[in-house]
């Protein structure tokens, strides 16, 4: 007797470009990359340039562009979260849909000042937990390892902050918890190729691997303090582990994203990119939204996890 724990309704499988979720996800990924590159990295690095005042006009133009990209990304993010919620409801994934809705509502509550950061963090932990339960329970084999590490990293990091804050404990608990979260994030990057395991690699995926890996390694070795502070601010990674770990994790994550695109699994590629750009620090409801959107997109596109449609779905 075989029972399949798979969604009953239609999924957004294969990431077809005409699907609203896939299309919105693609738009968000592009705009968020611009926001990350220009605003979170570009302007924060530019302030280190001596006599930046002499370049005030171009600097202001670039930072305005970055801020515009940020606002566009926030609007598209809200639309994507709404669309993916509808998709999850259509797949009868009510729990996952409720999780996404909960994050949207608590982010709104935080915006109007009736919920604090700790409440957002608590709801986000529950939401990521609910989405990861769906993901892990509907996949099989080695893909579960990568998915477990991906969901555990922000959950551990956020839980540590919430517990340390509520108990008023010192930095020791926080430091150890955040270090575990950081190690899990690096492990998630290293394990991410499992999500496309068994498929033929392409030149583009190897190029992505080399560019991301060597690029980050050069930045860490050449401008370590600036790169680490950018990693901390943007992704919640303190740079505690040896440099090669981060370079390898970035390389394998880039490899997986490129491979997913080559396979036509656009939702998987976009989801991984959103998880990467959200990080584990979840400094703002925007970054929390990126991470939740990444997990929700994965939960709505489970068929894309694995080498072929349904390859990774679980049977019992």
């Amino acid at each position, binding site marked *: 007797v075989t029972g399949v724990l798979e969604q009953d309704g239609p999924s957004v499988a294969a990431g077809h470009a005409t699907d609203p979720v896939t*299309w919105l996800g693609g738009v968000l990924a592009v705009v968020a990359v611009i926001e990350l590159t220009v605003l979170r990295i570009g302007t924060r690095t530019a*302030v280190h340039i001596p006599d930046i*005042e002499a370049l005030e006009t171009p600097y202001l133009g670039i930072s305005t562009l970055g801020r515009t990209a940020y*606002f566009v990304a926030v*609007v598209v993010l809200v639309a994507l979260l709404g669309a993916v919620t509808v998709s999850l409801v259509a797949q009868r994934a009510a729990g996952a849909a409720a999780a996404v809705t909960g994050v949207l509502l608590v982010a709104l509550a935080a915006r109007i*000042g009736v919920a604090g950061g700790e409440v957002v963090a*608590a709801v986000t932990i529950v939401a990521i937990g609910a989405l990861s339960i769906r993901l892990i329970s509907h996949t099989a084999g080695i893909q579960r390892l990568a998915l477990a590490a991906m969901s555990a990293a922000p959950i551990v990091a956020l839980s540590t902050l919430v517990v340390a804050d509520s108990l008023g404990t010192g*930095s020791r608990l926080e430091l150890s918890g955040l270090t575990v979260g950081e190690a899990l994030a690096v492990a998630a990057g290293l394990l991410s190729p499992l999500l496309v395991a068994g498929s033929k690699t392409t030149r583009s995926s190897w190029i992505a691997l080399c560019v991301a890996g060597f690029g980050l390694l050069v930045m860490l070795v050449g401008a370590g*303090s600036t790169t680490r502070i950018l990693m901390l601010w943007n992704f919640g990674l303190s740079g505690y582990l040896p440099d090669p770990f981060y370079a390898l994790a970035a390389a394998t994550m880039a490899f997986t994203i490129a491979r997913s695109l080559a396979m036509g699994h656009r939702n998987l590629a976009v989801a991984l990119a959103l998880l990467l750009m959200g990080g584990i620090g979840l400094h703002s409801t*925007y970054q929390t939204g990126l991470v939740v959107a990444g997990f929700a997109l994965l939960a709505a596109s489970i068929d894309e996890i694995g080498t072929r449609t349904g390859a990774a779905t679980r049977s019992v």
Partner: protein
Amino acid sequence: MSALTHPTRRHKSLFLGAVVVIALALQVLGANPAVSQGEALTAYSVFGDDDLLDPSVPVWDVADEIDVELTAQQVSYPFGGGSVPSVQVRALQSDGVLYMRVRWADETADTAGSAVDDYTDAMAVEFPSVVGSSVPALCMGQADSGVNIWQWRATNQDGLGDSANELFTDAQVDEYPSTDDLYFPARDLGNPVAVSGAGSTENLVAQGFGTLEDAQTGAVHGRGSWENEAWTVVVARDLVAEGDGQIEFQADTAIDTAIAVWNGDRHDRNGQKSVSQFVQLRLDDEIVEFNSGVPMSTVVPLTVAVAVLVALVIGFTLLLDKRQAAAGATETAETGEPPPNEVS
């Protein structure tokens, strides 16, 4: 409905146009839909005759306290610091003045500044010069987004320390015969470090590394006390700004705030200091009664809302898994064939 399920190129163009219009409107209005979710501190209103600059007055007990982690400053030379792992921060507002109280453990009170190897204990709070959607770079701000810094120094609070003759009793010290400012150029130029009686706390503005300067206008007050191997320092300023580059505080607005501490015993000075990330400060005009704690009007609905939300999410997840398992088993039993995407 088809526009939602199968959008055409025209639909997509219209949607993108609407997104850009909404985004630009939000940007122009400075209405950021997202908020920081880091540490949050609320400055409730209190009234009475207590001198809130005194760190020990009991009225401080009504204020929220948050624990803010610090790390060594590692962005710009001189690097270093990190000997103070955390500070405990409270905030209150009263009669149009914002008070921030910062407490941290320090085994030594370094208040003298007479010898060349004496370094003072100090503390600073940093705010964006303009409250809005743009958060400046943590370290000294940036060209288009400055910061306003209030720095308290133990040395200045206690004056400029003992004279050289009192410090080194066996030494012969030549001194300038004249006490005119002409012979003390730093004092003549108004350098607050050199001017005795200039106050313990300086109001500073900056727009990037190397641009830090005295704000010249706007009085910032501060007072610190060292007891039981810990400093407790209060800094305060009117909510209304008195000059360029200085923050104008508004009620119910989230304000990013960072803390820095210099440990004189570890020779901290300049960029060698312990710094925090931005934490969020919100001014709340709700008046709290002494000894009443955080207003129950905030605690009760928040707790109920969170509990209901968490219960709903967990309940939905458990219910869904049960229903899906049952549906899958029923489907398989009815058809006798596995669904097409199953791997047996």
